[in-house]
């Protein structure tokens, strides 16, 4: 009695289910198929009954497909290859004969053959190559007729090149419709939209936390600087190097920055007690950072503007700024005073640390 169950046939009978591509899919398939193994077997059996071929024939076919060919078949195959590859004269083919060797190669290694070689070959071997009387290099006739490229063509060529590059960048930076800007100006940021000096000045003229009022005053100040006649610079009190005086009003921000930076002190004096003894304070000069320097200058300018008689605060400050630019303001004296005291107090620079050292030594 033939076995009721043929595993090979079962495999070929359910080809669709037998297609898990990955290992995990195979596992899944195995797990799924285990509980319903019986039903799948039954379906295979049903298939057998419907097919015309007998069970034996099917098994034979299957075995052929799976195993090595028969010995006689293999021999027939080898015979075929040997016979077919043979040349017409019956000698089996060799790689050299099949591909052929150039005559020049044979001539180069055989001195005897060189003598009997045709004259054309002999001539060729004597002359170094590339020295023939005519040129064989091909030229593009179209290019020759055109002559030098015109500007428009150059531009078009460059344009296509740029176009290619932009396309490439777009591929590199997906999501950008237009190329990203090279650099966004500092003042395009919402929190930093005003230049540092403008911002510091505005905050320093603010009273009672009213920033909007201070901003309005600042805009009036800048408008006055913009429309006032250019400053007549006093040669004794020159501003820092910058744009020429007649150009200043058209750039009020630079104008204001230049004024503030020109009167900004380099140092401040620290009143240190207990160094000299006797309750006397010792003046120690300290270098200031840029923002601190500007703060001192802005404070002086606002203080001295209070003495002016103009009706509005913004007008007083703006006129004081112009007075500073023209060297008329008392702010310059304040700066000079600080610098003078600082120079005199240079000797005290190390005093504080020396005192500390002495104190620690005593203990």
């Amino acid at each position: 009695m033939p076995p009721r169950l043929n595993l090979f046939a079962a495999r070929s009978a359910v080809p669709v289910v037998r297609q898990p591509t990955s290992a995990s899919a195979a596992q899944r398939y195995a797990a799924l198929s285990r509980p319903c193994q019986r039903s799948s077997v039954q379906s295979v059996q049903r298939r057998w009954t419907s097919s015309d071929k007998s069970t034996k024939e099917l098994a034979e076919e299957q075995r052929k497909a799976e195993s090595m060919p028969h010995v006689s078949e293999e021999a027939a195959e080898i015979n075929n290859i040997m016979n077919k590859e043979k040349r017409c004269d019956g000698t089996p083919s060799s790689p050299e004969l099949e591909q052929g060797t150039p005559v020049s190669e044979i001539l180069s290694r055989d001195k005897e053959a060189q003598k009997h070689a045709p004259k054309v070959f002999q001539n060729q071997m004597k002359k170094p190559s590339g020295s023939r009387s005519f040129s064989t290099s091909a030229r593009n006739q179209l290019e020759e007729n055109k002559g030098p490229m015109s500007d428009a063509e150059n531009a078009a060529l460059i344009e296509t090149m740029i176009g290619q590059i932009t396309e490439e960048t777009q591929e590199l930076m997906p999501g950008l419709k237009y190329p990203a800007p090279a650099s966004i100006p500092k003042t395009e940021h919402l929190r930093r939209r005003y230049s540092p000096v403008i911002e510091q000045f505005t905050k320093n003229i603010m009273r009672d936390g009213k920033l909007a009022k201070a901003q309005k005053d600042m805009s009036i100040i800048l408008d006055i600087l913009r429309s006032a006649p250019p400053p007549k610079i006093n040669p004794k009190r020159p501003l820092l190097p910058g744009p020429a005086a007649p150009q200043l009003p058209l750039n009020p921000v630079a104008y204001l920055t230049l004024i503030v930076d020109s009167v900004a002190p380099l140092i401040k004096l620290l009143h240190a007690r207990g160094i000299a003894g006797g309750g006397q304070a010792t003046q120690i000069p300290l270098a200031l950072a840029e923002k601190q320097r500007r703060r001192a200058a802005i404070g002086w300018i606002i203080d001295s503007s209070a003495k002016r008689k103009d009706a509005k605060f913004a007008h007083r400050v703006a006129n004081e700024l112009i007075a500073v630019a023209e060297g008329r303001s008392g702010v310059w004296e304040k700066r000079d005073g600080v610098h003078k005291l600082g120079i005199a107090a240079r000797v005290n620079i190390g005093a504080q640390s020396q005192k500390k050292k002495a104190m620690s030594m005593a203990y």
Partner: protein
Amino acid sequence: MTSAFCSGCLTQLRQTPRAILPPPSTAVPRTAAFHTSAPLQKVVQKAKASGYEGPRYRVGANVKIKKKGRPQEKSRPPPPGERKALRKRIVLSNPNALEVEGMQELNGETMVDSRLRGSVLALPVPMIDQLRAVQAFKTSQGWSIFRRPGTVSRRETLEMGRLFDQISNESAGDRSSLKRIITGQRKAGKSVHLLQAMAMGFTKEWIVVSVPDARDLVVGTTSYAPLSEAQPNLYVQNAATAELLSRTATANKKVLSNLLVSQEHAALPTVKPGMTLEDLAKFGIQDQANAWPVFQALWAELTATSATPGLEKHFTPRPPTLVTVDAVGYWMQNTAYHSIKHEPIHAHDFVFVRHFLDLLKPGKGKSALPNGGALLYATSSSNNPSIYAFDVALKQAAARHAGVNPSSSEFPLPEPYSKPDTRVLEALNSPKPTVSKEGMLNVQELGGLTKEEARGFLEYFARSGLLRETISDEWASEKWTLAGGGVVGELEKLGRRLRVAA
């Protein structure tokens, strides 16, 4: 038995001797005997004048050092009127700004030239005095940063220029008129649009009558009185009327001095036929009590199409008239004035306001502006009252002009129970005029500039040396977007904004 002194009094014992023995002349105030501290303290306080007497009762022993604040401004306040003058000052030139090469002036040709769309046209120098006289410039507008005042020629400007040109070219006595209320968002250029209209009116030698700020008439800053005993519910503002006459006479001096009185004015016996209209206006300026009758007489002269029989030799055809009112929304509510019963007076009860609002309606028998011309009333969007009825009335006016039947369902009606001011709805209820050449009331909304116009406007900033940027289409388009779709006031802010090179 308890002591008559409390412990608090005992602490004061040190000081008592002097207090107990006061000089016989000053009597210690007598109080109830149950407590002695009050009269004692009073005497001690009196004695303090002689010098420091040690720490007082329940006063902390800490030394209080008065903080030195910022030195107070000791300078006197500026003289009266100076601050206001500074606030109202209009500066029209900045000598530091660069002269723009090839800038065209506004004149009869350039105001209709569509090729100049998007470019800034300078206002002619002689006209600036006239525009100042009618107070066409506002302090909030940025005239002070440019070399000379100029306005951008936009689509609406060119369209208006064409209409003005057309009205001027019509034959005298058969001119059409234009009635418009100009609306638009804040900084859209409504006031400057009126200024451009006035400049065109002066170019075409029209008569320009202007109310620069409707608010001035309703906030309670001008004198007012009942019009007459017969009409106690109508009020007249003589000072404001005299100012209007003054503005009109100064700005239109050239035109008015060539026109003669050719009508009978029964109310004004001093006005003689044959005197110039300029002199007529001066009557009202000098005698403020007569300002309103003089204005009525002047208006009758300007709208006359023919002379009174017998005065034909004085009559010459009158030029078209331009009437502009800015911030007209203020005229659509109760004013700050009160009637004799202390009830608020509605703005429409003032003859001044009523006169200008009546012009919006079609004239009876003849046009409201028989010699042609234009009525341009602009709303304001900054610090303006929010009046629901006015909003509805504007929508209704626009619908009427579009031909929507007021009885149809598409006609905008106020919400039920919203209680709109019916007087406002009635004031703008202007049906289609029967006179052929009279224009119908329309509402024109000013939007933003187009991108091309915005670019031209920003180029003007760059060429004046105020803007340090390379103006490209891309850059201008970016600013156009930032300015809310080309709102011209916002573009100006961006143009004058100061940037630091990165």
